[in-house]
């Protein structure tokens, strides 16, 4: 087998970790709740980046990482027979997050914002975070989550409409 020397794999991995490590851990924690499990998932995501010859080396990398991460998290959830995150008809359940780091004091507004977010269905929550926290485009979100682009648009629209109303009523905007 011809050795194929990949000259800047280490640098790319390091750069990828610098940029995406925390967002990925956060993303994974949203899905599986336990921080340690989430970290394992993210570690494996980066290992996959090293091992998979098909890992993108360009601007497609972030979405790819999130996709891999999401799939691994789903596997974990499936293995543990937890509730199916993809079911849109699920009751809105506040994110269970026993992460002690969350106990850090957020400003009152941020607190209320995140509370409002927590009341949305998991699907909408996920795409809203991908959009406003991770700054992915609709297309990238579609790639990551497996939804169609128009479905992504619909989920974001529904979620944002509800939030908009809540924030307005709460006097936070408008």
């Amino acid at each position, binding site marked *: 087998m011809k050795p194929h020397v990949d000259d800047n794999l280490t640098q790319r991995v390091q750069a990828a970790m610098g940029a995406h490590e925390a967002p990925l851990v956060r993303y994974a924690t949203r899905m599986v709740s336990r921080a340690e499990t989430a970290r394992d998932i993210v570690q494996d995501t980066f290992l996959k980046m090293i091992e998979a010859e098909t890992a993108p080396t360009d601007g497609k990398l972030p979405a790819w990482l999130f996709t891999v991460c999401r799939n691994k998290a789903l596997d974990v959830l499936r293995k543990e027979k937890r509730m199916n995150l993809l079911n849109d008809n699920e009751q809105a359940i506040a994110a269970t997050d026993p992460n002690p780091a969350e106990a850090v004091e957020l400003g009152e507004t941020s607190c209320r914002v995140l509370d409002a977010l927590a009341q949305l269905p998991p699907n909408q929550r996920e795409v809203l975070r991908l959009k406003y*926290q991770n700054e992915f485009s609709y297309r990238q979100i579609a790639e990551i989550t497996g939804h169609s682009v128009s479905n992504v*648009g619909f989920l974001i*629209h529904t979620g944002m409409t509800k939030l908009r109303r809540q924030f307005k009523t709460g006097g936070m905007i*408008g």
Partner: protein
Amino acid sequence: MNLNENDPKLTAFASGELDDTERKEVEAYLAEHPEARAKVEEIRAAGDMLAAAFAVEPADGLKDYQRQAILENARIAQQGRGNLSGLQQAAEGKTFTLPAPTRIFVLRRWLSLAAAAIFGMTVGIGLFAFQQNQAGLTDRETQLASSKTEGREDKPSDTIPLIDIPKFPEDKAARPGTIPGSPATPASPAKATEDELAYPKVYDVRDLSVRVTWGNDSPDSPLITGATEKPGPTRKEKWNREAYDRIVDNPFLAALGNPLSTFSIDVDTASYSNTRRMLNGGALPPRGAVRIEELVNYFPYDYAPPKTDSKRPFAVHTAVAVCPWQPKHKLVRIALKGKKIPAAKRPPSNLVFLLDVSGSMCDDNKLPLVRKSMKMLVDRLGENDRIAIVTYAAKTKLVLDSTSCHKKAAIIKAIGQLISEGRTDGGEGIQLAYKVAAKNFIKNGTNRVILCSDGDFNVGTTSSSELTRLIENKAKTGVFLTVLGFGMGNYQDNRLEQLADKGNGNYGYIDTAAEAKKLLVDGLTGTLITIAKDVKIQVEFNPARVAAYRLIGYENRMLKKEDFNDDKKDAGEIGAGHTVTALYEVVPVGQKTPAVAPAKVDTLKYLTPAKLTKAADGDEMLTVKLRYKLPAGEKSTLMQVALKDADGKIGRQDKDFQFAAAVAGFGMILRDSPYKGTYTLAAVEELAAAAKGKDPNGYRAEFIALVKKARKLKKI
């Protein structure tokens, strides 16, 4: 287009998602529908609020050991993707030959013994260089390639150590290819079954059959108990060991051919705290992380200090005991005790804390612990002491200019306001810290920069050698450097140690508040006040009584015999009240021992062989010589002490000696030293328990608990 107020396209527009064509369409629509426009504005505002709230959320990252595992794998993969095939082959249970390192070390053992000692030193330096090199294995490959003497084909898979990724439960611990347990083991190919191999699985998200258990979901998960995060129970003991196996244990040397043993003293204790942290976390430490002298020196011993009227800064004691792990051998202990300086007589201090506040420091066991440690220290200082705080992350900041500790409140406030942010750039920080220290220099006082870091010490625009030169030069002006490591994995350990070395200071690792107290409160005078610098030891063994000897530990402190009298050569420092212990395992004349290779050197043609002098006739086993300089001095002073031979029975009564021996044995077993013989952790535990003594601070009890943990992990 047909839009309405409730169209998802409006939301997409508000979030900047649409392409030019669609955007223009929406803009046109909005121009005519003010209510829709208002809604869009509201959505934009809501989006901004969301983004703002997300930005404030704390960002957890991976643990250090996880990052290191990832980077190590990247480096290995970078070497050659072809390796994956080699590893996959191995994974399929095919045989493979041992990686080159083993052959090298086996080969080296049979070199002339004098060369072996030098080899140990060069390897130590090579290790340091290796760790500096981002491309990691490239240097090592070169190192190996240049020392290959056999005609072996250069298969990439041969030179790449197998990396064990933590947490795959089906990977078993045994990894063939590490340094053989005894010099006599020839390098033989090992048959590797799937069970025995640790290999990275190349897996595919679509292949759901390859699933493993994730993390630690037990009820005593730290998330629930709030305990310190553990590395995870499935982390294998041999993770990444290969990368640190560059410290070769000092071999036995024949006294006749090598009568002189020269080394620099060391009071660092970081290796013990680091090892303790790993064992408490449920993992055996990598071999290279265990520096035996730092384990032994961690514990306080009851050595007699110098007499009050003595001009000397420390007292030297020697003793002999039977060697616990090899009763036919003896153990010689050289003990130094620095003079104590009562806290009240402490000279005024000018301290500059140089703190790494980069993002990686926000873990509980890092910046919060740094703050706690600093508060503890400030509490002990007085109005004649000054403290300044420099932080470095993305920016370098003088958070607190040099302030008298009279103003404790202001200092404590500044400490409380330290937050972590951004990436690390240490070079500027160090320069600023030294500047501040120089500006507030106290003549005949303690002037020190105290660097607190998690080891992620990126020097940014300053090159590594510029930095060491700076530190060395500053040390000459009397501003010393103490390095305190927090929360880090192994990776930068050697580097921080080197910095402390160059800076004439000490290196400690703080993993808990208790350790902070030991170093900064109980050990305050020791940490802050240097009483002697460049302290070197040279032992001359009497070949009439000693057949062979071996220095236990201090591998990266060895000096050439000429360095002893060379005042330009840097060596270690002793702080007030510090103890330093060095142990030699000695083979008495008359004992046949396979430990020393027979010297197959030809008789010299132009010189007659060395003859024993009259002095050798007496009952002296060895003479210990020491050279030291006073902190502000440039010329060294010589001290000399002879040790009479003894059967070692008295040494057996000395609890301190026995305990130190137990600790040394522990270190040897953790390092899988070729010289541990049949010594077991059970024997270590027994010896330590018997030698526990009063143990006022509980350090010895803690050690015994660690031995128990190690036994559990090794399943023995």
